[in-house]
């Protein structure tokens, strides 16, 4: 029998009708939508247990306490440690995305020589050669660590120089070093006891010092109060984050902060608003009122407001002799609530931005801000976990990334007391990395290892019997039976906090008012700490919200 076209039509009609009462169309519909819920190209987090561990942030020299979630040997989340005596659970916005930094596309994965792939051996040979030819300069961005000591002793052994890139907070304390003889790195601000803080452009609420240290203090004592216990007066040309939240904002003409400091000091002395005898500023009040654009009365008023609630301290954004002199006039140097000495020891550093002469090799630790480039014809060996792009180093050497190496954490630059914490490594690098310290001890076997130094520090703290060990509960060091126990607790996330250095704390000699300073940051690199890269999630703060702007390695 012959099949007609009509039969075919009818047959397929039947087939279609029949198919409707089979699972085919319905299962396909269902499974396809399930497929769309589990697209294979959408990455999904791994299954398995999640551990919570404590460590400290090593991205910048503030050393905030971290509570880190770890799954399968990888970091999957970062949070603050509420019991941390300094940061009290706070972190900077970047830290919350830091666990993704180790996977950053700009992660430095191989040794680069003049931007072409090389090996560790080649780097080592090149470095030994350079060392044999002349002195070496080692530059550190995070002084006071065990690793720093390794770097320093290497330089000493080679009759080279150990130099330090100081944080903006520390540089702002430099004038007092000149006048008191106490190294800036050992000075701090006793903000806990201040009644009024006059900030000359210092971003007190926006990354100044350890996050959460001052901001939390401000929030508890100043935020939203009509008559706060802590008066924050922000002197700044533009309405910065800090200015917008301050108790009072003083909009001065750009660059006239120093002039205002002089003006205020003048009024204070003239009206005998201060007991302390200080040097008289050369600048006349009228001139100050003019140059700041505030007018005489405003400055007089400001001076009176400032002293209305002592103790008063002025905080500069960077090395500013005038602001420092104002503090001298205010009697804030060495006084409660002012600029205090953090430790009795005496250790000063050679600033990194003094020109380098006659060195054959320059080693730059990974803690040094990326945009710092020494002017030298020596061969530069730059350690870095992330490749910040530009930068004139001959050698780029991959250093451990975020929480990839154990280290110790000295006090944050602005603190009034010493502190010490340990940051255990919580994950492994996926490629061969070496810190500068490890690299150098590979060359000079006589060097002490960082582990030994950390061990010694713990011994030292234990023997001093000074201060508290702060974890969930606080234990006086004197309570500890063995240094072993103390060290264990430190590795588990506890933080040691020292005691304030009793009076006589500082003695300051200043005869006449400092000559007007020109801009102190001339070296062409930014004053505040800069990372080579930002965590990808920083885009939430910048591109996706417009809350902030990107400024190489920093948030403006």
């Amino acid at each position, binding site marked *: 029998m012959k099949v007609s076209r*009509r*039969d075919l039509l*009818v*047959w*397929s*009609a*039947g*087939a*279609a*009708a*029949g*198919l409707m*009462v*089979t*699972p*085919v169309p319905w*299962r*396909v519909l269902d*499974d*396809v939508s*399930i*497929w769309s*819920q*589990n697209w*294979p190209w959408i990455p*999904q*987090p791994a*299954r398995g*247990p999640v551990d919570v561990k404590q460590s400290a942030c090593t991205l910048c020299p503030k050393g905030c306490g971290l509570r880190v979630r770890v799954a399968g040997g990888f970091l999957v989340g970062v949070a603050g440690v509420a019991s941390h005596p300094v940061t009290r659970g706070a972190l900077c916005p970047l830290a919350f995305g830091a666990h993704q930094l180790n996977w950053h596309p700009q992660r430095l994965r191989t040794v680069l020589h003049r931007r072409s792939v090389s090996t560790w051996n080649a780097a080592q040979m090149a470095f030994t050669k350079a060392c044999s030819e002349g002195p070496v300069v080692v530059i550190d961005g995070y002084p006071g660590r065990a690793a720093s000591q390794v770097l320093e002793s290497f330089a000493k052994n080679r009759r080279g120089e150990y130099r330090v890139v100081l944080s903006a907070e520390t540089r702002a304390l430099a004038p007092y070093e000149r006048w008191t003889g106490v190294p800036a790195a050992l000075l701090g601000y006793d903000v806990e006891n201040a009644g009024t803080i006059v900030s000359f452009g210092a971003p007190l609420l926006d990354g100044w010092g350890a996050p959460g240290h001052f901001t939390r203090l401000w929030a508890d004592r100043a935020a939203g109060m009509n008559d706060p216990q802590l008066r924050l007066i922000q002197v700044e040309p533009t309405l910065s984050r800090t200015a917008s939240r301050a108790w009072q904002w003083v909009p001065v003409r750009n660059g006239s902060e120093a002039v205002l400091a002089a003006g205020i000091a003048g009024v204070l002395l003239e009206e005998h608003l201060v007991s302390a005898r200080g040097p008289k500023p050369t600048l006349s009040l009228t001139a100050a009122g003019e140059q700041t654009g505030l007018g005489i009365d405003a400055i007089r008023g400001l001076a009176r407001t400032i002293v209305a609630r002592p103790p008063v301290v002025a905080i500069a954004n960077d090395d500013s002799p005038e602001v420092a002199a104002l503090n001298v006039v205010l009697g804030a140097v060495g006084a409660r609530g002012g600029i205090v000495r953090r430790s009795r020891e005496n250790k000063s550093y050679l600033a990194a931005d003094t020109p380098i002469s006659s060195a054959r090799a320059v080693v730059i630790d990974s803690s040094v801000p990326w945009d710092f480039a020494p002017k030298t014809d020596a061969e530069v060996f730059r350690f870095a976990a992330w490749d910040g792009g530009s930068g004139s180093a001959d050698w780029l050497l991959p250093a451990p990334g975020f929480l990839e190496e154990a280290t110790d954490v000295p006090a944050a630059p602005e603190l009034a007391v010493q502190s010490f914490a340990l940051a255990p490594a919580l994950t492994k690098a996926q490629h061969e990395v070496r810190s500068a310290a490890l690299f150098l001890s590979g060359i000079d076997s006589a060097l002490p290892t960082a582990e030994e130094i950390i061990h010694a520090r713990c011994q030292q703290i234990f023997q001093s019997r000074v201060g508290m060990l702060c974890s969930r509960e606080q234990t006086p060091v004197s309570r500890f039976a063995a240094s072993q126990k103390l060290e264990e607790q430190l590795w588990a996330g506890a933080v040691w906090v020292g005691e304030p250095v009793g009076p006589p704390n500082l003695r300051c000699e200043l005869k006449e008012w400092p000559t007007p300073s020109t801009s102190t940051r001339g070296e062409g690199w930014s004053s505040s700490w800069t990372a080579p890269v930002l965590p990808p999630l920083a885009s939430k703060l910048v591109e996706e919200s417009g809350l902030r702007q990107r400024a190489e390695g920093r948030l403006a």
Partner: protein
Amino acid sequence: MRRSLLVFGLGVMVAMLAGWVVFPRALYMRKPQPLEFRHKTHAEKSGLADCNECHALRDDGTFAGLPAMEKCAGCHAERIGETKAEATLVNNYIKQGHETPWQVYAQQPPNVWFSHSIHLKRAGLKCEDCHANYGASDQVKVYEVNRISGYSRDIWGHSISRLHRAPHDGMKMSDCEDCHRQHNADVGCLGCHK
């Protein structure tokens, strides 16, 4: 007219055959398990009758699922018995320190959050209530994966129509919902979704 009816019916027949017989076979792909494993033997001979012996809850309440290699290595560090599976286990996995790449029958997709502790401790369910008496089985059953959705066949259940299913057959969301409804334990979408 009768002829067209016949042809029409033929069409229906063919479709039925394809839909109910061919399709279910075509939809799933069989994947072999890496090893021959006998729950029964472990339960009877090795005194691991209690599921928790191997499929334990962690301290934070999360469920460990299949035991990790060291658990197996506890007994199988060296070969016990002469089976081929024993050899593969010891040589390919324990000695190498690799986890056994089991195919998990009851594996739910990444967007599902299922808490064994809540169902065991709060709801007082037994393992068998959902996993049937698999613990007493004498060999590993074939693992079948849905070619389109990538789910294990146990999620939909073995009856393709889901009309008269054996108890414990199927772990679809609707199955969870039914049980939750019966025990009026409404938890909302994000009660079970990540």
